[in-house]
């Protein structure tokens, strides 16, 4: 196990280093100069150069990479070109929106998916199963930004139950904040829940066909009891995998939703930063997300071991 962990950590580190290179290179070739963007139409060339110097854009690429990467190690993400504030602070604020949103959406999708998946699996081929599968098919097919538009139309504008978007901030009270995240969370959760339900169902069905389920029944366990006591835990591994993927997806993939609900989240930060060529922000945030993904995958692997004793020993 130790050895396995050690190996994983090495891979994790390598991934991050390569990723940082990829990110830096990809982004540095983006055409468009932050300085001239900031100064606008009537800016004088010398003004622009002055600003470039101020931002350290006149250094060589290598210098910039090293100082940036070095900073990352120290947890210093650098100073935003446009906002002129430490990227760390911006990221912290944005995470304050994206992280809860992701968790909220994930929670919703789990709350929907688990019961639905179990029901569908246990009633395989029945009406319930068919209905649930139908709904998930629809959930998979609906583009979430379109779904979001419809949600706003109904709940914000027609019924005015929710505000159409924006984020009042946590200091305005937990419930107020959560409320403002509700519609986006629903929009995000729908497809995720659909996927999760299907995975849950199929992996449960796999397990239900296993010999040991027959053993359990032969012991005298009822169908239902056998499912809860023996099938569920065995069915968890694929579900965990998907959960991991979904979390990292939700953390970063909410861009469009964040735009529709004008939420100040990570995705939108990157989107804006790309538009304003605030390269250092883009680089740092993307790296952060990559790190998050790698970390989550790592944790999911550990969770496997927790679920399945067979994975505890070697590897």
């Amino acid at each position: 196990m130790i050895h396995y962990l050690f190996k994983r950590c090495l891979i994790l580190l390598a991934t991050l280093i390569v990723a940082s290179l990829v990110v830096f290179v990809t982004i540095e070739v983006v055409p468009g100069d932050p300085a001239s963007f900031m100064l606008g139409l009537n800016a004088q060339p010398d003004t622009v150069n002055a600003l470039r110097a101020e931002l350290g854009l006149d250094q060589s690429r290598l210098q910039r990479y090293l100082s940036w990467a070095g900073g990352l190690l120290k947890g210093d993400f650098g100073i935003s070109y446009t906002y002129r504030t430490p990227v760390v602070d911006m990221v912290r604020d944005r995470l304050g929106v994206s992280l809860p949103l992701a968790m909220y959406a994930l929670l919703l999708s789990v709350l929907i998916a688990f019961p639905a998946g179990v029901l569908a699996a246990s009633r395989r081929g029945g009406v319930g199963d068919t209905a649930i599968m139908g709904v998930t098919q629809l959930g998979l097919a609906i583009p979430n930004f379109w779904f979001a538009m419809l949600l706003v139309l109904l709940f914000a504008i027609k019924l005015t139950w929710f505000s159409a978007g924006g984020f009042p901030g946590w200091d305005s009270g937990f419930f107020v904040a959560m409320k403002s995240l509700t519609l986006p969370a629903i929009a995000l959760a729908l497809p995720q829940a659909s996927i999760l339900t299907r995975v849950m169902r199929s992996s449960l069905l796999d397990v239900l066909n296993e010999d040991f389920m027959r053993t359990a029944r032969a012991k005298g366990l009822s169908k239902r009891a056998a499912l809860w006591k023996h099938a569920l835990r065995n069915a968890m591994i694929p579900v965990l995998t998907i959960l991991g993927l979904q979390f990292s997806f939700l953390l970063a993939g909410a861009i469009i939703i964040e735009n529709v609900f004008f939420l100040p989240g990570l995705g939108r930060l990157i989107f804006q930063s790309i538009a304003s060529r605030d390269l250092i922000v883009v680089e740092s945030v993307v790296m952060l997300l990559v790190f998050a993904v790698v970390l989550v995958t790592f944790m999911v692997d550990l969770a496997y071991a927790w679920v399945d004793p067979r994975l505890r020993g070697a590897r």
Partner: protein
Amino acid sequence: MKLRNILPGTLLVFLFFSAALISYLWTPFDVALIDIKARFKSPDTINWLGTDHFGRDMLSMLMVGARTSIAVAIVAVGIGMLFGVPLGLTAAAKRGSWLDELIMRANDLVFAFPALLIAIMITAVYGPGAVNAIIAIGIFNIPVFARLSRGAALSIWKRDFIQAAKVSGKGAVRISSEHILPNITNLLIVQGTIQFSLGILAEAGLSFVGLGTQPPIPSWGRMLADSQTLIYTEPQLALYPGLAIVLTVLGLNLLGDGLRDWLDPRLRHDR
């Protein structure tokens, strides 16, 4: 019973594919033709689905939009298979070797990047447009197929008939092409349809944020974006393209599931 699963999907897919194909030869109206005076017409005998905010015929727009979405998705999936499958097969053939390790780590790396963001960055680097959208979507299809084919191939490599082939002196390449590939095509086809539908969603998403297909070529995603502000006054403009996307994706998914059952019952639970 198998037919029941495949039929609705096939019908939907056929509907939109034929619409796309027809649009190459004929559309009710020229989608490049803008006539402001004729905008927001409600459906009638001339414009079956009415006209948009530029007075263009919605039906024609949808048909050409289908063409765009499908083309983008197909090529993207193609890229994914073209690179992914050989990579996966190689990794499986050389399982445990440094090459295998390298390929798989590279996959993880790509997986580690938030797809939509990279797509946005790519389009930011090389400018928005269908081609770059395709590349962006395609890149993220590669690891999907690489993993799938590696996993499937590994299970085939364990079978005795591979041993028999080795005894007959066949090499890894020959075995992969003769024995492995034919035995994983079903999986690939099924996954293909799924990735296809994801591709369509992705294209719609990119176009929706203005990084996908560029005007004047219509695309469902951009039609949605254009009609966004009008959804309250002219809801049908946002409704049609939305439905088009939903139905196409739905069709493809249904088709995928149907194929899954039909081609190989053993894959029914396969994910």
